[in-house]
Structure formats: C-alpha cells, structure tokens
C-alpha cells in the first residue's frame, strides 16, 4: 500500500503499524510525536494502530526555533 510520510510518498507493507513504521524509518522516539490524517496517535497506541492505504503520516520533533 501507499502512504505519505512527512510529505513523501512511500510503499509499505499492508497493515503496517505506526510502531513498525518508526522502526523502519529509524526515527528516534524521544520527544517525537506522530499524527495520522491530522489526528494525533498517542505513544501507547503505536503498536496497535494499523496504517491504511492513502494515510498521511506526520512525524515531528523539536527543531531549532525562536
């Protein structure tokens, strides 16, 4: 299936969990947050939330800013 992660389209395994996606992308967990289709995914649900075809995923962290 195709999903969009941080604006980048990618092909991933059907039913991939948020947890597996973060591991696949080697994203550090500390101070990271995830939203799927504009809704925030709580950390406790990473393993149980299965992504669906066409999902838009945002993964954010703190960056330099004022």
């Amino acid at each position, binding site marked *: 299936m195709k999903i969009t992660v941080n604006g980048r389209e990618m092909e991933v395994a059907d039913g991939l969990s948020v947890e597996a996606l973060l591991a696949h992308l080697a994203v550090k967990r500390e101070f990271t947050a995830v939203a799927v289709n504009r809704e925030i995914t709580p950390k406790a649900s990473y393993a149980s939330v299965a992504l669906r075809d066409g999902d838009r995923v945002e993964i954010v962290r703190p*960056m330099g*800013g*004022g």
Partner: protein
Amino acid sequence: MHDTNLVLGGKDFTSRLIVGTGKYSTNEIMRQAHDESGAEIVTVAVRRVSLPGKGESILDFIDTKRFTLLPNTAGCYTADEAIRTAYLAREAGLGEMVKLEVIGDARTLFPDVQGLLEATKTLAREGFVVMPYTNDDPIIAKRLEDAGAACVMPLGAPIGSGLGIRNPYNIKIILETVSVPVIVDAGVGTASDAAIAMELGCDGVLMNTAIAGARDAVAMARAMRLAVEAGRLAYKAGRIGKKLYATASSPLEGLPDWTS
C-alpha cells in the same frame, strides 16, 4: 536586593531571559550561548523529522534536565494549526507550556490576534500554560489574560528585526493593564534593548536572533544576561525622575570665596 522569581504555570524561574534555539551557526555555539545566557527556558520549533531519522539533533546539545523546553507554534497561520501543533508538542513530551504564535502575515510576522485569542481560550481550557506572542496592544493583552493566558508576550518590534522596543509607552500601559507576567518577545537587537524592557518593569525578555545572529553569539548571550539583570535591578531600585534642567550634585553652600 531581594527579588521574586518569574512564575509560569506554577513553576519558578530565577532567570528572566528566555532564549531560542534557531539560526545558530553550529549546535555547539548554541550550547555555549545557552550556558552564558543563564536562561532556564529555551524555545524550540516543532517540525517534521528528516527521513530516515539519522543525523544530529539539537536535543543532543540541550540538557533537558537543566533547561525547560518551550515549544512554539511558529509558522501557524490559523488557530486550528496552532492548537494542533501545541497538542503534538505535548504528545512529544515537551510539557504543557506553549509559546503560542498565530501569524497574520508572512512579511511582518505580526500576530493574528483574533486567531491568537481563539487558540488561547481553547488551549488554556485544555490545561496548557499558554504564552501568547502578541501585539503591543493593551486591549488585546487584557483579553488574552481573560482568556486564560499564563503571561502576555508583546513584541518590541517585528521578529528578527533588531529594532528594539519601538513603543515603550504601550508596553508600560500593558504592564498596568494585566496582572499576569509581561514578557517582551521579539525585536530586541542589542543589550540596551533588553535592559529597556526590564527597566520598564517587564517580567522577562524572550529573544533568538539577537543572540544567534550576533558576530559572537556566545559573548552576546552573556551581554543579554547582564542587560536583563541590570535592567531588572534598575527597575527594582527605582530610577530618578527626568528633569529638563540641571540639579547640582554637589552642595551649593560652603564654596570658597575667590572674589578679589
């Protein structure tokens, strides 16, 4: 002289200088500047991670046991975007404090106070410690306070402009209008600007570019720390009134007679 702490969301801070984490030439320079500034709160933006998730992170250069991270909603043009960003920051583990920005225009980066007020109401109700970046408008400042803001942060001048405190009289009126802390956010160019804000009676100053963009950011961070401390002390000490004519500092009596 005894001084009180800056209290935000029930937390006490002895430093009245809040600094940013953007625009530094290197992360190491940022780390040193933070150290010299004496700040206890540093602002951060919330942005997409680069994929794959490798590379240096600013968090490797910020001791999160020492500094409180203050996520901003910079780049948000609607209340909805700002609210979502605040929630993301909280979910990321950045705490309840949020430097709330709802920008109205890309060229001036002036706040959209209508959106700001709306977002302040929602986030305050949801338990956030809302620190709104606002105009130097006492009416809006009062409305933000009534909406549940933990402090108000009027701009001294446009973000990154370095123009200093362009309307000290409005800042003074804001100080008389609200009872929450008043923190000047944006516009500071050099140490005297920070001192002026504090001499007016402001509770703190927030800056990024003035330090990060200085030729020697680490030295400027120290200058800002001293300026904020000096300005605060001068405010507490109570300055003399301004007079048009001279008032002699030396006694007029007891002058020797040089007449011949």
